[in-house]
């Protein structure tokens, strides 16, 4: 399955993966310690997908993502401090603490919408794609979503419109085999999500979401296709979420053997080893990178925890551009 990528690209991807993985680990640690309380949807295990996709994106390309999307955002350039301050509900957060972990936005890096509603990242990504078509600026929009989301109406309407309008959109389904507690098979009639592309006359590509080369190849092609005006692609990246649906999840619905196997085959250290083996980075460089990431996260967490919450006046701000009465 794995497409070969050169060491430099693998390293670039791993640099993101290392950040994403460390950040997730820290988030769970902070939650466990009771330093923060929030609904948290761990993406541990899925890091390679946005890391590889983002490596193919321009800084000004767009993404729309979901509640389980902090990896997508970090890969696209969400700054750590404002991220942590936001999920801590502080005024210094990227959304002044008003959005929280399910609703992060950072237009500076094209992170346009994070939605808590299953399926809703797709229709909005189409609109971003339409804007690119109109302005001719070549920007591509990526919509991230899960396998379960492929069963909701918004998915269908979005793929159809994107195809009919030939929009520069890439639909990236992170298929982690579960939708909350429901297995893929119990909710999804398609043998694979990518099979659905046929009904929209667009390419449907399934790739190994735990293999950087596989994702990178699929993403590169889809993004090029989109950017050159040939229209949308549906990518299905097979992966696994290590920590259940939401932080604190009891997990009884999961096959322990499946989970065990997935965690043993953790794609992040696998990619790390691959990069080192390819001589693109030394063990020491990797360790230094990881140490730097840890200290950046330290700083971000400290910044967040030291920040003040938003004031009560924020309930009356940002409802409309100009506040109105009645």
């Amino acid at each position, binding site marked *: 399955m794995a497409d070969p990528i050169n060491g430099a690209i693998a390293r670039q991807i791993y640099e993101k993966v290392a950040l994403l993985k460390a950040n997730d680990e820290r988030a769970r640690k902070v939650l466990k310690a009771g330093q923060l309380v929030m609904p948290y949807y761990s993406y541990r295990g899925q890091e390679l997908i946005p890391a590889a996709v983002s490596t193919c994106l321009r800084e000004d390309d767009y993404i729309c993502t979901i509640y389980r999307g902090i990896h997508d955002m970090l890969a696209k350039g969400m700054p750590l401090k404002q991220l942590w301050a936001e999920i801590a509900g502080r005024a210094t957060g990227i959304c002044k603490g008003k959005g929280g972990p399910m609703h992060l936005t950072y237009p500076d890096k094209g992170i346009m919408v994070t939605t808590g509603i299953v399926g809703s990242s797709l229709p909005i990504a189409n609109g971003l794609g339409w*804007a690119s078509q109109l302005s001719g600026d070549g920007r591509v929009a990526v919509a991230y979503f899960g396998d379960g989301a492929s069963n909701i*109406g918004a998915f269908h*309407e979005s793929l159809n419109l994107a195809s009919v309008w030939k929009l520069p959109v890439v639909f990236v389904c992170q298929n982690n085999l579960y939708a909350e507690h429901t297995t893929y098979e119990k909710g999804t009639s398609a043998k694979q999500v990518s099979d659905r592309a046929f009904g929209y006359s667009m390419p449907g590509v399934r790739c190994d979401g735990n293999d950087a080369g596989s994702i990178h190849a699929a993403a590169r092609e889809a993004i090029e296709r989109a950017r050159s005006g040939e229209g949308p692609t549906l990518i299905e990246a097979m992966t696994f979420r290590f920590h259940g649906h939401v932080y604190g999840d009891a997990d009884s619905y999961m096959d322990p053997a499946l989970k065990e196997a997935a965690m043993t085959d953790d794609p992040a250290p696998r990619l790390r080893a691959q990069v080192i083996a390819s001589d693109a980075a030394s063990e020491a460089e990797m360790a230094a990178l990881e140490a730097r990431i840890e200290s950046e996260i330290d700083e971000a967490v400290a910044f967040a925890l030291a920040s003040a919450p938003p004031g009560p006046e924020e309930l009356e701000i940002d409802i409309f551009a100009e506040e109105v009465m009645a």
Partner: protein
Amino acid sequence: MTHLVQTAAPVATAAKPIHILKALNQAITDAMEADDTVIVLGEDVADPEEGGVVGVTRGLSTKFGDARVRSTPISEQAIMGAAIGASLVGYKPVAEIMLMNFVTVAMDMIVNHAAKLRFMSGGQTSVPIVIRTSTGVGLGTGGQHADYLEGWFAHTAGIKVVCPSTPADAYGLMRAAIDDPDPVLFIENMPSYWQKGPPPERGYYVPLGKAATRVEGTHVTVVSYSRMANECLAAASKAAERGVSAEVIDLRTVSPWDREAVLASVAKTGRLLVVHEAVRKFGVGAEIAAEVNEAMFGKLKAPIRRMGSAYCPVPFAKELENIYAPNASAIADAIVELGKE
């Protein structure tokens, strides 16, 4: 309000009357001419598809091209999503949901996203879209094509609700809605598209949130909007013949509504009747009544009355449809009765 570039005199004297449909078409045309970022989408809105089922968007795709004016599949969620997405990065989409009952398949996009993204992003993004839709009883379309659902959106923070009742207002409110930096639900009345009235001046803006006093009166204040505002005007004439003088206020914008104008009028008359075509129960009229009651406690001459449609789906049979919503003669009766209380 920076986005209101002009609020000049509404009516060019001696100009030929135009109908609401034409006024809307003119407003969108003028907005597209003035601003390249104004774009249009919806089912059948482009000219190869006849420029909309009744023709509100006719001529736009021919004039402004297929890129800016797009007919869509029957996919209301995708329509709203496309509008929202484009609006996040500088466009001003005017999206059509053919009939108001079809907003029911796009509520997530409108309520969870369009109305909330400014707040949830801490003001980083905004959704300057206009959602045009049409509704209203009178055409025998039955239970799924004529509901007034503005109450749902008035109850939703972050979206404005506009309901014109004259050609000039249709024009001026549309221009203001398109320029508004936030989502606006723009509700047109299907049976009134061909209603004529004095034409607006090109570039005329009706500020959102400002009511119009359609006729002055002393005994009873009547507050309404959309087609019912016209029924109320007719009712006021009838009531005048019966010795009761009604002041008719057309809200024009339902949310935010012009509390000041309503309170000023009720301060004068001491009596209020609120009339809308939406089902009476839990409708917009309740909020207005509750607010005015609170503000005018002890100063009202009579209880505030509300009229709205019956608590049932829109019936098909003409005889039932005719009595489902308030009409001028029922409203006149209510005005007269209230005036005597």
